[in-house]
């Protein structure tokens, strides 16, 4: 698996670097970036990139679209892109979030992928603005060596370009890379390059044309565990009797360097600082306040190693997997909890109800490869629709639960490659008549009534042939 990807990457990089001097005509050529600063945070397994761009409109026509370019290898790992503009001066600054959408350009060199940032008000000729862009990469740290023993620490590669890939001319740019520790084995030098403690500075580079690229490779120690949830199914079941039941099914894997050879408990227990430093010992889930009846189990029963701390603002559930997870080890488990309905269900102005709930995974600092959120509406609810702040795949299902006759509508939303940033709220709107709440109790009473009637009838009927 690894080898062909790397080969492709290298090929891509070389091709891109060939384009170093190639100047291309692009529709937005009237823009240029006067100053760019990029800070890459490599401390956890989610790579965070903060990009500050000072964009100048050197052309004659006003424009409101700014393009961000990503090499195709990175775009697969790109979890989220956010852009914002700070307005006002000093103390009165307000932050305005901007729309970011993936864009296809017909003449993209080497399958470069683009995102367009839509400015709130168009940038007039000669004006400039400062954009803050945040984007996160998952699965971008490649463990090397790919397999480590229990007592070894985890070393990873990070690949990027010293120069920011951009369709615009960049006058001045600097890149800072922050490693989690001072233990950096090697890094590519693209002069001027400096290293100070955990931070590496590339640049400043002056006047680089568009699509400049200069691959760099950093090899450093990252002993934080890489918790990756391969698949997460969250089921939110609404009961109008006052409870919101959440069930979350996890398939967890340690995404770091694979564990090799023996696992010795005696070493692990007696020398925890040296042994299994990158192993995943526990996870922290942040749950909503007023959570009750929390359970943590897997397919073979309850897992007893968990702690729940609640206060008025949040609840924290600390869970330990059954065994410490080393690189490549897997575990599956299930977390369930109940929540008071009034905290999450509201009535909208048009007489509909809506559920307001968080979308992402409650585990901190975790990458989710595939998330399925299922909202089970009560039986008899109509016209469901979901509002999610980012694109998701949606469809509807029907689920039969306790004594259902027509079944409950389930709104299913799927999304791939999630990071904690996706823990934003989504809404599911639906209409529901409270009469349906009584359907099941009435059904039960009727059934019992009929049963007793049948009993009475049976006792009063003489079925014998002979008198």
């Amino acid at each position, binding site marked *: 698996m690894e080898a062909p990807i790397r080969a492709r990457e290298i090929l891509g990089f070389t091709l891109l670097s060939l384009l170093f001097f190639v100047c291309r005509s692009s529709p937005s050529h009237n823009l240029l970036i006067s100053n760019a600063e990029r800070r890459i945070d490599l401390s956890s397994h989610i790579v965070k990139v903060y990009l500050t761009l000072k964009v100048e409109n050197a052309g004659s026509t006003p424009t409101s679209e700014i393009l961000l370019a990503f090499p195709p290898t990175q775009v697969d790992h790109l979890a989220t892109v956010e852009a914002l503009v700070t307005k006002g001066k000093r103390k009165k600054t307000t932050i305005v979030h901007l729309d970011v959408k993936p864009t296809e350009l017909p003449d993209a060199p080497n399958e470069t992928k683009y995102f367009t940032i839509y400015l709130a008000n168009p940038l007039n000729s000669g004006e400039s603005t400062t954009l803050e862009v945040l984007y996160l990469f998952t699965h971008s740290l490649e463990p090397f060596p790919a397999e480590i023993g229990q007592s070894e620490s985890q070393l990873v590669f990070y690949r990027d370009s010293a120069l920011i890939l951009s369709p615009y001319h960049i006058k001045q740019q600097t890149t800072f890379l922050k490693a989690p520790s001072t233990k950096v084995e090697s890094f590519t030098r693209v002069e001027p390059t400096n290293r100070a403690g955990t931070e590496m500075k590339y640049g400043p580079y002056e006047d680089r044309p568009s699509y400049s690229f200069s691959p760099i490779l950093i090899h450093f120690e990252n002993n934080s565990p890489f918790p990756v949830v391969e698949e997460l199914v969250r089921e939110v079941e609404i009961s109008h009797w006052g409870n919101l039941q959440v069930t979350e099914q996890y398939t967890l894997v340690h995404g770091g360097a694979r564990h090799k050879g023996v696992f010795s408990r005696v070493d692990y227990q007696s020398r925890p600082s040296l042994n299994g430093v990158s192993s995943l010992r526990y996870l922290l889930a942040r749950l909503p306040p007023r959570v009750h009846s929390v359970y943590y189990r897997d397919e*073979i029963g309850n897992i007893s190693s968990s702690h729940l701390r609640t206060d008025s603002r949040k609840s924290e559930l600390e869970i330990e997997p059954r*065994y410490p997870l080393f690189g490549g080890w897997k575990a599956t488990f299930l977390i369930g909890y109940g929540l008071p309905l009034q905290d999450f269900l509201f009535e909208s102005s048009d007489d509909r109800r809506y559920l307001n709930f968080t979308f992402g995974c409650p585990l901190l600092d975790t990458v989710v490869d595939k998330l399925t959120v299922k909202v089970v509406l009560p039986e008899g609810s109509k016209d469901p629709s979901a509002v999610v702040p980012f694109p998701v795949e949606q469809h509807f299902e029907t689920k039969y639960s306790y004594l259902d006759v027509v079944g409950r509508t389930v709104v299913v939303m799927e999304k791939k490659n999630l990071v904690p940033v996706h823990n934003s709220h989504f809404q599911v709107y639906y209409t529901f008549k409270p009469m349906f709440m009584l359907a099941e109790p009435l059904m039960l009473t009727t059934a019992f009534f009929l049963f007793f009637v049948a009993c009475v009838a049976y006792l009063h009927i003489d079925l014998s042939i002979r008198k």
Partner: protein
Amino acid sequence: MAAPEISTAAVPTLYTNNALRNAFGGVLAFFILLLIGVMAFSIRLFSVIKYESVIHEFDPYFNYRVTQFLAKNGIYEFWNWFDDRTWYPLGRVIGGTVYPGLTLTAGTIWWLLNSLNIPLSVETVCVFTAPIFSAFASWATYLLTKEVKGTGAGLTAAALLAMVPSYISRSVAGSYDNEAVAIFALIFTFYLYIKTLNTGSLFYATLNSIAYFYMVCSWGGYTFIINLIPMHVLLCIVTGRFSSRLYIAYAPLVVLGTLLAALVPVVGFNAVMTSEHFASFLVFIILHVVAFAYYIKGILTPKMFKVAVTLVVSVGLAVCCAVIAVLIALVASSPTKGWSGRSLSLLDPTYASKYIPIIASVSEHQPPTWPSYFMDINVLAFLVPAGIIACFSPLSDASSFVVLYIATSVYFSGVMVRLMLVFAPAACITSGIALSQAFDVFTRSIKFQLPGISSNTEVDAAETSSATAKAQNDAVKTEKSEETSKNRPSKKSKKKEKEEKPSTKAKSEKKRLLALPLDSSVISLLLLILLGAFYVVHCVWAAAEAYSAPSIVLTSRSHDGLHVFDDFREAYAWLRHNTDVDDKVASWWDYGYQTTAMANRTVIVDNNTWNNTHIATVGTAMSSPEKAAWEIFHSLDVKYVLVVFGGLVGYPSDDINKFLWMVRIGGGVFPHIKEPDYLRDGQYRIDSQATPTMLNCLMYKLSYYRFVETDGKGYDRVRQTEIGKKYFKLTHFEEVFTTHHWMVRIYKLKPPKNRIRGKSKKSKSQKTSSTSNRAKRSGTGKKNPWH
């Protein structure tokens, strides 16, 4: 205990109208029964409340896995299920080798609930099957005892059974084993038999066969029924209680029951081929002979009859001889003489320990100790004799059955701890009878002594006695209609007929004579209630403390709170998620079922100990030195070896403590493993005095590998000693996982070394020579039985 108090309290009601009283009593009895059912169910929930809703122990995991398969794939797939995840490489035909009753029951409940859109998981249904069926069992006990001694005794017996510790031990929530449903089936079959015996109705006889069929489906213990009922029939015939009712109760059971039993794949032709069933056929023949004799006697004059008897006896003897000769020939042709090992060890308690170590190694196949009687049936042990006496006054068909039931089950329970379970219902029934009769006597005497209500008591006394006699009266009525049985009605029915006639007055006078002094009866009553209270307290304690542990999770209470040892599931979860799905795991057979169910990995041997050689192979590997063991395991395609080790935390039932059985079972098939090699002067020890064979065997090494590094001394807390060999290395195995408390350790077989060209020839020649020469192999040469 609430039952007798309420039922006796219900008697002195102010209603003079008898019908209304009866109706009231019926409703009361119904509610008491309902409460007994609720109690039987809820007293078994301690395990769920204290621990969790989880399947317990070993065998239930297999049943759970089978039920999962059934729920997923349906009944037809189930019958044809060939399980390739166990007994590798042999596999096991599950559909043909399990008693399907339990699985089908739980599967049906699950299916029913799911078709009503109640989405309970298979696990939940399995966990709660046993408590539900213990409620059924207590109701069945009520019915059975009611047939024997009336409603009061029935309610008391049901209440006793609902909480008898012996039964609780096998039917707590999560204990999803055959016995859970089988005890209900057993009691219900007995009830239907007694009911048929009392009524002579073919309807009940048919139901009886069906109940017997359910019992055959559920548990191998059905042989107890098919031997006990013939014994009772024989007893009835011998004591001159033959009647057409007896014939109706027995003949359809044998014919229909055997046909139905043969439908169960695991029984099949065993229903007619094995010795366990021969007694029933023999009695069947005797019954026919007797019936025929009575018939002849009815149509012939006494003189002619005498002639006929001599004729029949001579012919009969000849036929019998022929049949017996054929039987002996059949039985002698089979290697175990037609008896399965377990049944043989029932008859001869020393059989198993002498010949079949695999049966003797199971703790529940050991004879019980005296304290375990007190633990499991508590005060019932003292009430049983009283109950037996009560059964003799008056002795009826039904009560003679109870006496026979208790006599045989006492014997069987003395042979095997496990069969205490069969004894418990009998103890409950007799104790229920004893208690209820005692209450009856005491309350009646109190009533006679107390002034003012003596007028009521007359009616009352008549009422109670007529209630007890009601069942027998029914029997008498049916008897009247039948011509054949008129000749010789049993003594009991004669007595009853007489009793019907005299006025209630005469009877009450008779009762007055029997009355005890007021103070003594009040005190005795209080003492009886105290005894009952003691029983209840003991049962609740047993249910809550002794029998609620699921054994896959262990807890210990220390000064800093509750400590949970969840190591087994930790290991199984690790195996499940971090090994290849087709990897084979070798462990001692105890953990086979759990490994397949929880870890979903193929095992070599499991708790269904059907292949002794295979188990012996694993035992041999565990008792061999590392290299030989590696070769055995490698030839079995084993990738991981799992051992259970309790030395760090003091968990006594670990593999080192079971190790001698591995040696014995292994040595039973592969003679190069000799038990004395592992013992120093007849003592089993693992300290520095242990034999070198012991210190070098695989089990020792896998258990104690790097154990010394935990405390520097290698002190084993189970054996209370320092281990003999502390520092050693493994050459053919590597440790891949050890659980938090070291209770489960998993090792991986190292891959075979690359062969160096010069050496490969040599080893090859060795191999060929060893395979060609079988005698040499078992000697000093290769110790791998699979090559």
